[in-house]
């Protein structure tokens, strides 16, 4: 009795499983993250060189963009190499703009002598400037121009 | 610690360099101990002048380096002379 029940279930289940696999194969399709087959060559992304000279801000609170190359600068848990010129202790000597004093305020509003941990990773806000097309279309208008 | 290593390195460098090698060679040219010492010492004095320095960097040669090279040159000259003496008797 028990055996026949199991046999019946199996008889239903196995065609269903096979049918499901077939449907999954034909409809869904698998896309690689690379966007092309392995043997296909992809167009390399365009390289946009650094823009020299300091850019004007597009709106009042825009983080200033970086007018120099910084690909080799170490910014991690141990060291922030940007600070070797831009920290207030070195900026005068190196002729670099000092960090705004808001970067020395911790989240409770205490003034610190070293950069606050919340502001440690420069590239979260500041990016190297390049005349590259926008990655995503938008209709942003700079407030510095429209006014 | 590091300065001891530095001293050892300087001595080793001198032995393996011009004062050591050429010092022994020149020492072997004579049986006279004094001449051997003078020849070895001369090489010791000359070698930092000839080989030291750099085409672009201004590397000062320290007095320690200089004296080590001279002493090693002297000793190498003596060793060379000793080899000559030993060799002559066989």
């Amino acid at each position, binding site marked *: 009795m028990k055996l026949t029940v199991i046999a019946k279930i199996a008889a239903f289940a196995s065609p269903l499983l096979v049918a499901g696999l077939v449907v999954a194969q034909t409809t869904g399709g698998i896309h690689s993250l690379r966007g092309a087959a392995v043997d296909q060559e992809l167009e390399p992304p365009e390289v946009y060189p650094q823009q020299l000279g300091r850019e004007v801000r597009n709106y009042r609170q825009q983080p200033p963009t970086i007018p120099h190359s910084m690909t080799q600068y170490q910014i991690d848990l141990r*060291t922030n190499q940007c600070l070797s010129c831009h920290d207030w202790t070195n900026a005068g000597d190196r002729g670099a703009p000092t960090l705004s004093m808001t970067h020395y305020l911790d989240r409770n509003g205490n003034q610190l002598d070293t950069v606050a941990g919340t502001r440690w990773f420069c590239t979260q806000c500041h990016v190297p400037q390049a005349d590259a097309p926008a990655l995503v279309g938008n209709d942003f208008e700079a407030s510095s121009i429209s006014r | 610690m590091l300065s001891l*290593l530095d001293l050892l390195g300087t001595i080793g460098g001198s032995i393996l360099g011009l004062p050591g090698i050429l010092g022994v060679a020149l020492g072997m040219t004579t049986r006279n101990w004094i001449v051997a010492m003078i020849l070895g010492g001369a090489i010791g004095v000359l070698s*930092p002048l000839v080989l*030291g*320095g*750099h085409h672009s960097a201004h590397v000062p040669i320290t007095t320690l380096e*200089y004296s080590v090279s001279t002493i090693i040159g002297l000793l190498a000259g003596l060793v060379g002379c000793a080899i000559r003496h030993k060799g002559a008797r066989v």
Partner: protein
Amino acid sequence: METNLGEYRQTVHYNNHSGVRAICSDCHVPHEWQYKMKAKVMAVKDVYHEVMGTINTSEKYEHRRLEMAAAVWKKMKATDSRECRNCHAFEYMDFTIQETRAAQNHQRAVDENMTCIDCHQGIAHDLAPGYLEEYQHVVETLAQSKLQDGSGGVDVASIKSYLGISAD
């Protein structure tokens, strides 16, 4: 010796646009015979610590990173960054095609008798926290030991130029 090699492989001296690559010995072993032999004798210490496993985990490595970096900085500062200058010399630089910021600072370095490592720390290996203070400390101790030495060594360059045998 694996940690620092891995870090080095991320840097511009290993991966760059021109396809020229420097290897460990280009920066860490002098070209001149006597200094090369000296470096090789002194490398006994490195071999010893490698065998004894002084820096064989990343925790141990991080713990000693600043100390090890300071030892190399000291060597480079004392020799006027000799190994850098086997390839990079102020005489070979065209300041007009450098980035403005770089050209200005290189001119300043020439004027003030600075050396490569004074600014370019951490170009080949990661930096530890507090590296600027440690470098300052290295410079000060070197200056002090030079003062105690008095004579400051023998000026080979002037003797060579007096004798008329200047290497290029």
